[in-house]
């Protein structure tokens, strides 16, 4: 039934369909071209048939955040997608998690419009194995790398195979030579007409589906059944379980969860990504008082509604919120792996203490109705106040503190200027802008200029830095140089488990990246070749910017943790040399007679203490006036006595802040010294 519905919806037309279906109050792929598309609503499963089906090849899958990217097969454009909480993945004709689906697989995305009208919200993902009936193998052309099949839509197709195509018989991998004309096959493609995987024989299909079903059952038992709360009445919650109704029914039956009498479940709070916090501690015992079938199904609706009563209501037990239920006492109640568990984020090494909705200005996280924060003279702007734009660095101006970049996707060109406190992070080290190679994709934290354009760059950082900050690396899964691609999985650094042993948390996501002749490979202190890459390597890399058709191409790949450290250390050493020559950038906060308080700038509080190498206790500081580009202005340096830290020294939470303020005293202060004046300062040795 499910397959038939999807097959019916598969035909995507660019022209609005002229057929009218009065039973549906929205446009579909087949009818009602005069009506708007169905828009997703909070607390409502989208009606079956309301989706706009788009075919695409999966390029990136962030299964923690239930998002990813695919390339449309019709026009080659890239689509970033997210799954709503009830979004369902079918793979190998069974329910699956996004992590089960190999990158490069051609999939059918049941999409809905986001707030901007783009079809990026995906309620269903299905592979060909799930959607199509068995095909008949009509011809095998080994030398040409082709197979002819019939029975599908369109029927009578010629498909390609290459050295990456895998063939399965029973539970074993076979070779193309083991195929026979007349075999019943199911095929998942990788792009148009290129076979990724071929399953041979009806029994193979059954075994494959069964294996995936078991895998998903185990996955659900480890994490609990996901559902959302329809209603809260007193202490009672009415919840609707997510998933494929048929699969869910089978799972409940298999687990002997009989909805005929009251039983106890463990209820844990979650978020829209179906992630939980700390189930062993947060779990509340809840009695299931009632089980009802859901009359009207929608995408993602499991067809079952339970009324439960927890022993204590938690904030997360609210209408519309997602919770997970450990539905049987035998299900182990454990934390999700590191990185997937939300609690590791809120209580971890760098918790964000603030709900972004609290800011009295607009941020990338919300409050769209408010104006953005405008930097004020003499004040360092607060963290999160900048608008992050990602793009490729195209030009660096002669002053070394301004330049140009091209925004990802839109291609918009932005001329940016760095304020004095603006910082550049490259290879996880603070640096000067000139050190960043042109053509590098960077993140620009921008404030508005006088005209309201986002041109004032508080921080510029490359992808290497961004990953290193989150202690992430890529693990090379597959090298496909012929295709100009590498397949990687994102992985966390080692963490301590409950026995204090260092363990590697599960992958964070997977992605495909392009490489070309210009891609440089670094291994140890030397530059290597792309041929040095092999599966299992731990990588960090920078890429070029992205367009609507390109995910960007790797510019530099650093292979191995040692290489990463070496790259960072070298960059740091280079920056230290620059600082030693020119001095630390700073500005004058305030003046009191012959005393001044200065704030030292830095892009990283973390590294600054080692860069500073201690305060000049009992010593002096040499200060030179500098312009807004941090360039020293001609004139003799001034010697000041270091008096210590002022009471408000411990500053944090701002861009450009080193976390260090100095109180200095001069025998006489020149007129040019005034609050807001930029300085370059050095400890006098």
């Amino acid at each position: 039934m499910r397959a038939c519905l999807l097959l019916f919806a598969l035909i995507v037309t660019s022209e609005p369909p002229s057929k009218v279906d009065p039973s549906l109050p929205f446009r579909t792929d087949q009818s009602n071209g005069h009506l708007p598309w169905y828009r997703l609503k909070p607390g409502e499963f989208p009606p079956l048939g309301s989706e706009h089906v788009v075919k695409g090849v999966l390029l990136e899958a962030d299964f923690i955040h239930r998002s990813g990217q695919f390339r449309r097969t019709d026009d080659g454009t890239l689509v970033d997608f997210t799954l709503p909480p009830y979004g369902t993945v079918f793979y190998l004709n069974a329910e699956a998690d996004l992590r089960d689906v190999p990158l490069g697989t051609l999939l059918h995305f049941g999409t809905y419009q986001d707030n901007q009208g783009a079809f990026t919200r995906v309620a269903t993902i299905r592979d060909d194995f799930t959607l199509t009936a068995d095909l008949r193998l009509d011809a095998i052309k080994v030398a040409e790398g082709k197979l002819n099949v019939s029975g599908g839509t369109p029927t009578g197709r010629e498909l390609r195979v290459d050295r990456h195509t895998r063939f399965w018989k029973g539970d074993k991998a076979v070779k193309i030579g083991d195929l026979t004309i007349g075999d019943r096959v199911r095929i998942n493609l990788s792009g148009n007409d290129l076979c990724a995987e071929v399953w041979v024989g009806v029994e193979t299909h059954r075994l494959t589906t069964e294996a995936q079903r078991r895998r998903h059952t185990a996955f659900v038992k480890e994490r609990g059944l996901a559902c959302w709360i329809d209603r809260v009445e007193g202490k009672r919650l009415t919840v609707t379980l997510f998933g494929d109704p048929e699969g869910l029914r089978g799972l409940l039956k298999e687990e002997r969860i009989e909805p005929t009498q009251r039983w106890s479940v463990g209820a844990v709070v979650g978020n829209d990504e179906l992630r939980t916090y700390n189930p062993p501690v947060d779990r509340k015992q809840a009695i299931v008082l009632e089980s009802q079938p859901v009359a009207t199904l929608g995408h993602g609706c499991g067809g079952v509604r339970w009324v439960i009563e927890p022993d204590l209501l938690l904030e997360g037990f609210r209408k519309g919120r997602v919770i997970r239920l450990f539905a049987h006492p035998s299900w182990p109640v454990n934390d999700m792996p590191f990185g997937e568990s939300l609690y590791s984020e809120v209580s971890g090494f760098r918790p964000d203490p603030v709900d972004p909705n609290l800011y009295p200005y607009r941020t990338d996280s919300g409050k769209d109705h408010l104006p953005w924060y405008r930097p004020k003279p003499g004040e360092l702007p607060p963290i999160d106040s900048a608008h992050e734009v990602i793009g490729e660095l195209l030009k660096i101006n002669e002053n070394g503190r301004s330049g140009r970049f091209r925004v990802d996707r839109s291609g918009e060109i932005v001329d940016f200027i760095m304020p004095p406190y603006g910082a550049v992070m490259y290879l996880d080290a603070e640096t000067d802008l000139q050190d960043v190679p042109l053509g590098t994709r960077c993140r620009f934290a921008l404030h508005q200029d006088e005209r309201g354009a986002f041109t004032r760059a508080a921080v510029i950082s490359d992808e290497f830095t961004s990953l290193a900050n989150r202690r992430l690396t890529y693990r090379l899964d597959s090298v496909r140089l012929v295709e100009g691609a590498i397949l990687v999985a994102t992985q966390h650094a080692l963490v301590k488990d409950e026995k204090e042993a260092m363990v590697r948390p599960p992958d964070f996501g997977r992605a495909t990246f392009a490489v070309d002749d210009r891609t440089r490979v670094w291994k140890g202190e030397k530059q290597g070749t792309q041929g040095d890459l092999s599966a299992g390597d731990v990588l960090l890399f920078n890429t070029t910017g992205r367009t609507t058709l390109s995910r960007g191409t790797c510019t530099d790949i650093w292979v191995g943790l040692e290489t990463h450290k070496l790259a960072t250390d070298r960059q740091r050493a280079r920056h230290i040399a620059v600082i030693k020559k020119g001095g630390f950038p700073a500005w004058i906060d305030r003046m009191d007679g012959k005393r001044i308080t200065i704030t030292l700038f830095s892009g990283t509080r973390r590294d600054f203490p080692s860069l500073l190498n201690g305060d000049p206790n009992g010593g002096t500081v040499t200060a030179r006036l500098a312009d807004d580009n941090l360039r020293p202005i001609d004139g003799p340096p001034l010697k000041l006595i270091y008096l210590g830290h002022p009471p408000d020294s411990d500053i944090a939470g701002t861009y450009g802040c080193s976390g260090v303020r100095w109180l200095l005293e001069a025998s006489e202060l020149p007129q040019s010294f005034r609050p807001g004046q930029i300085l370059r300062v050095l400890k006098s040795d």
Partner: protein
Amino acid sequence: MRRRTLLSLAIGTLALGSGSAFAGAAPADFATDVGPFLARYCVSCHGEAKAKGELRVDTLGKDFAETRTAGRWSEIMDRINSGEMPPPKEPRPKAEEMVRVSEWISAQIMGAEAERRASLGEKVSFRRLSREEYRNTIRDLLGVTFDADDPAGLPEDPDWQGFERVGSVLTLSPAHIEKYLAAAESVLDEALAIGARPKSEVTRWSAAKLRVRDDIAAELATRGLLDQVRADIVPNNGALDARDLQIATPGEYAVRVKLSGLRPEGGRAARLRIYAADIGRTLIDRDVIAAEDQPVTLEFRAHLPAGTHLIRIVNAVPGPNPEERASRPLNYRPFFRMSARQPWQIKLTDDSGKPIWPTILLDWIEWEGPLQESWPPPAHKRIFFGGESATKDVTYAREVLARFATRAYRRPVRPGELDRLVALYENSRRLGEGFEASVRTGLLAVLCSHSFLFLVEGSAEHPSLGLNDWELASRLSYFLWSTMPDDRLLDLARRGKLHEPETLRAEVRRMMGEPRIAAFAESFPRQWLQLRRVGMFQPDRKIYPEYDEYLEKSMVGESTSFFREVLTHDLPIREFLASDWTMLNAILAHHYGIPGVEGEEMRRVPIGPGDHRGGLLTQASVLGLTSDGTRHRPVHRGKWVLESIYGNPPPPPPPNVAAIQPTMPNGPKTSLRAKIEAHRSEPNCAGCHRKIDPLGLAFDQYDAIGRWRTVEEIRDGSGANPVINASGELPDGRKFADASALKALMVDDVDKFASAFAGKLATYAMRRGMTFDDRKALAEVAANARRRDYRLAMFVEALVLSDLFQKR
């Protein structure tokens, strides 16, 4: 074995002297009851012929003041009560006979005890001020608050039959002497302006300071969000929110708290309790109702000693386990508003934003002090009456000390006493101290002298049973105000007028109209009804989750404010037995299921028969103090009625009394009454318990925390919970159906209650036990009160005007 189970209940036999209908017939008598009993059942083995166990009952003395004699009689009573004597093979006495013997022995023992407490044999009696009286006296003498209940204050006073002011019980230990010295130093430091004026400072604890980790607070500050942080204080948070408060200078502090208090619909308000854990003192305990976006600022005063105080900020309402993470505050994710709490935290508002739990949202707490409304303090000005223009010499010092000592001693200072005080001043001056500091040494000696710390009555040189006017002023003042006499009383004493009946009557009436009468209205019922025992056995939180400190305080508050209401409106004391009104606040009304009462203040609320309240006996305090932490105790309740209402406490239970067996898990659910009745079927128990039990079982329809019920909830056992039968029969044969009917019978017998009440009032006023010799005088007091319908204020007046009151 039989004797061990014979009396398994807590109470043994009765020893009733009043002849109350609730106790039985005329009091037992040696000639008619005890002598014949001993001759018939005991002398054969314990007489001249055998004297088994070296005991002869035929020659045993009857001076119960003699400890050894009293001990032997006590043993005889125990042996009879337990069924051990007479031995099994000997003829058995009737149960009624045994009861009569026990009653007589018990009455003699208690009479002797009262004699000892009366201390009548002394030429001079010294009755130490109680802790409460000391505090009040310091307040009125020096205008300074002394925190007597703090650990650094004074030891808790022992009680005798609930009364905490009986002279022979209030002994003086070495610990007291140290404490009195320290207290005197402390209060003089605060009262006198010796040295620089203490600087008043303001300490403010923002919610961020209380809750947020320093590094995160720094981030919030730079993002401009620090001021928006609030502290979400969930119910029952216990010790989760605590901070040290440094107090350099002791004194009066203004405490301001900005907060919201969210109250669930139909539920309890959030309750702010600020508790100084190190001194065990609650600084404020108040309901707070204020919307999240409409915080209020509370202000109150607290007297704080110097030191580091561990301040706990508590939302003192019952709630979920505070140890669970769901209830704990976070120091890494500050709270800003209710709609942005962490999902794993306890849900405080429902989906429409209405509060589910009473919750406090705290913005800040501010401590300002020490407050000095004038400098020098008023007490300093009064003591150093001459001001700065006075000649600071020994003459002036003598006059200063004489005036102070006269007020402190509550009588004129004697020349010899004054000389010793002046000598202290002179010594200090010789050592180089300033004038005020030297006078202070004399003041210190006054505050540590026995004439200040004790109420001294009588004179070794001129023995007399009557009180002089100075002594009368003190007795009257400490009776009604629990503090020193005011200037008017002292003036009347000085003029020798106070003892004159009309003057005394006028003074009693004046004193009862003063705010200080609150001390009597609060203290007397607390001691008479033994309210100190409320909550002594903390009710089990699993069985009674709604029970908390505030409810307990309100329970006691009902009884004391009920007393005050009767006193203020001069109502008859029969209101204590049954009334169509009571005093309630919101929480107690909720506890009783009486609608329409809001707020914390106790107010008079009319009640009907369906409310099942009225009078003292069905107040939750009384029902609670006669229960244990898990269930009601009918025998304790009966004993309390006999003791507190009729002044005839039964004797203690015999030794080796077995406990009542709990209901077996698989057995049928059995009411406590049924279990007690099973014990009462034993002939030896029946005689006593026939008198005690009905007075307790009548209140079975009230559980251990005083809630009305019709069914006794039994946790163990099978079958339905038993329906409660509260009916009973008095020893005189009158029957009643329930507590309400019993109260009606008690009102009919109000004279008996009045007689006992006169004794209780006199014990409190005269600070000694009442003896046989006092009976006549007490009867006169009761008779005088009866002529005025036993109206309470008149009752008090009758006592003060009686001969009894004006004698030692």
